[in-house]
């Protein structure tokens, strides 16, 4: 049983998610802003926090900063109505292990929560597209070659995700196991979080402005 905490400032949405989640998931609490979220996470110690990006009091990134900054091992799955690049990249770099948009189906969400709880990363097609786009511009010399570029295999996996393939289909397509697909995605997530390529943030902001 995966223990989940829902953080969202819309009550309607929280109850909607609660109703949609499958039997394998137990919702241990809800929070509606940064303050209550930080307290609820400390109190309940959930396996996964479903985190809204836009919230009063600093938004999801503030929750990530305060909870992960205090050394907590709680895993976050960002769930937002926004698919603006700066929100997506911002919350992933803030430490979330995945990003899905709110129009995701209940079954897919359950699936994503399970995956995050197991320590894997969850990439929506759009997030995969953003990452490909962000790492594509490689004119700037990288500081850490390992962190600052994607391997050929990682790129292939991301492209398939962007094309709408499920992990199982990707595994079949590339003749690898689902576990290996998950390893690749986790590796991309790590690069996305740790790479100090300035373009990543700059790129995300520029996409909004251009």
């Amino acid at each position: 049983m995966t223990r989940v905490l829902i953080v969202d400032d819309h009550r309607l949405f929280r109850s909607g998610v609660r109703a949609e989640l499958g039997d394998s998931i137990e919702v241990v609490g809800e929070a509606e802003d940064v303050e209550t979220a930080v307290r609820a996470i400390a109190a309940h110690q959930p396996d996964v926090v479903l985190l809204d990006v836009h919230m009063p009091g600093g938004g999801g990134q503030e929750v990530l900063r305060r909870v992960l900054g205090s050394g907590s091992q709680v895993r976050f799955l960002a769930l937002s109505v926004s698919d603006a690049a700066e929100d997506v990249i911002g919350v992933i770099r803030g430490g979330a292990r995945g990003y899905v948009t709110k129009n995701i189906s209940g079954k897919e969400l359950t699936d994503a929560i399970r995956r995050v709880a197991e320590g894997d990363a969850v990439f929506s097609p759009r997030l995969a597209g953003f990452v490909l786009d962000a790492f594509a511009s490689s004119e700037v010399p990288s500081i850490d070659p390992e962190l600052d570029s994607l391997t050929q295999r990682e790129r292939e996996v991301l492209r398939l995700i962007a094309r709408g393939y499920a992990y199982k289909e990707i595994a079949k397509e590339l003749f690898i196991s689902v576990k290996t697909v998950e390893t690749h995605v986790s590796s991309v997530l790590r690069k996305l979080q740790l790479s100090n390529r300035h373009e990543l943030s700059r790129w995300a902001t520029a996409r909004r402005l251009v």
Partner: protein
Amino acid sequence: MTGTRVRVTMAYVMADQKTLAEQSGDAPYRRMTRPMEGRLLGGVAQGLAAQLKLDPVVIRLMFVLLSVVHGVGMVAYAVLWMVTPRKAPERADPQRDWSQLAAFTAIGLALFAFGWLTGASQGGIGMLPFAVGGIGALILWQQADPERRRGWVSGAALSMRKNRIRTPLGVGLVVVGAIGFLYSQGELAQARPGLMFTIVVVGGLAVIAAPWLAGLWKELQLERRERIRQEERAEVAAMVHDSVLHTLTLIQRVAHDPREVSRLARSQERELRNWLYQPAQDADATLAAAVRRIAAEEEDAHGVPIEVVCVGDIALDSAGRLGAMLKAARQAMVNAAKYAESPAISVYAEVEGEEATIFVKDRGKGFDLADVPLDRMGIRESIIGRMERHGGTARVRTEPGEGTEVMLTMKLEKA
């Protein structure tokens, strides 16, 4: 019966409003009074200004100018003072505006000295027409656009009161000018001092007028900012009204049809999202924008959600190769939406290196490519044929029960 009563009440209300307007607004024939608040001497100029709907400063300047000519202004002021009743002050100790009084006195003295020295006030050079002309010009200026001027003047009066340095400076200028004139009078030619005096008087006037000009400028800027804000608000309101409210109404009307409801909601969501997050994109300019637009159109037409992900982008070429590719992509989306019975369609467009690729994937029932009859134009002609004619390739991957994916690839010509 009820209708009549309502109409009668309406008439009462309207009559009431009319009286109110007459009382509160500047009624044309009310009696002139001398307000004590803000007066310089006896409040005559202020009262007259209120009566004529002019600015008090204009009236004051007029009195000063007329005083120089045979002292007419002074006499007129005295007469008006006697015949005009005082208006009871609202506050216990009505304030005189000393700084303004000083400025006007200085101007008056300067003009008087000027008139006396040049003999203008004795009518030597026919000063009266000038005085009258000057007053006329002031009134014209004042009347040019009363609506707007009222705003400026109120702002200017405020800044005048705030600006305690400016007025003494003006007075000082005038005084220095007067002393200088008297001193140099003996040596300089007759025209010279007159000219100098005029400059000094104009300088004094400019100092008095400066707050107006500043206020005017500030007012204009404010107005501009306000207008921009209003335009933005109007745009948001128009957006909400034209699309969101409209869609909500439509959704209520087709509430029995879940498919149509979700189609409407999705199309509205897309529109709002574009408006919020995407800069105004010209759908005919780049590949990614065109793919998004086509997907949106087909989603609307067929009611199947189409998720679009774009990586990289390129301007559409003139040769029409990318145009052909877009037509093929549209056909692929139409096929998926119409025949695949898939809950959703994924579209992925990528521009990398010298190649543009578009993938259209569904999770529908799929089909056996070999079974497609030769005369079915959709896939063979509109997708594969079209791509090949333009130097690209199209591959279709499908199996019954496995969904379909159409892959379009086009080499990009080097710019």
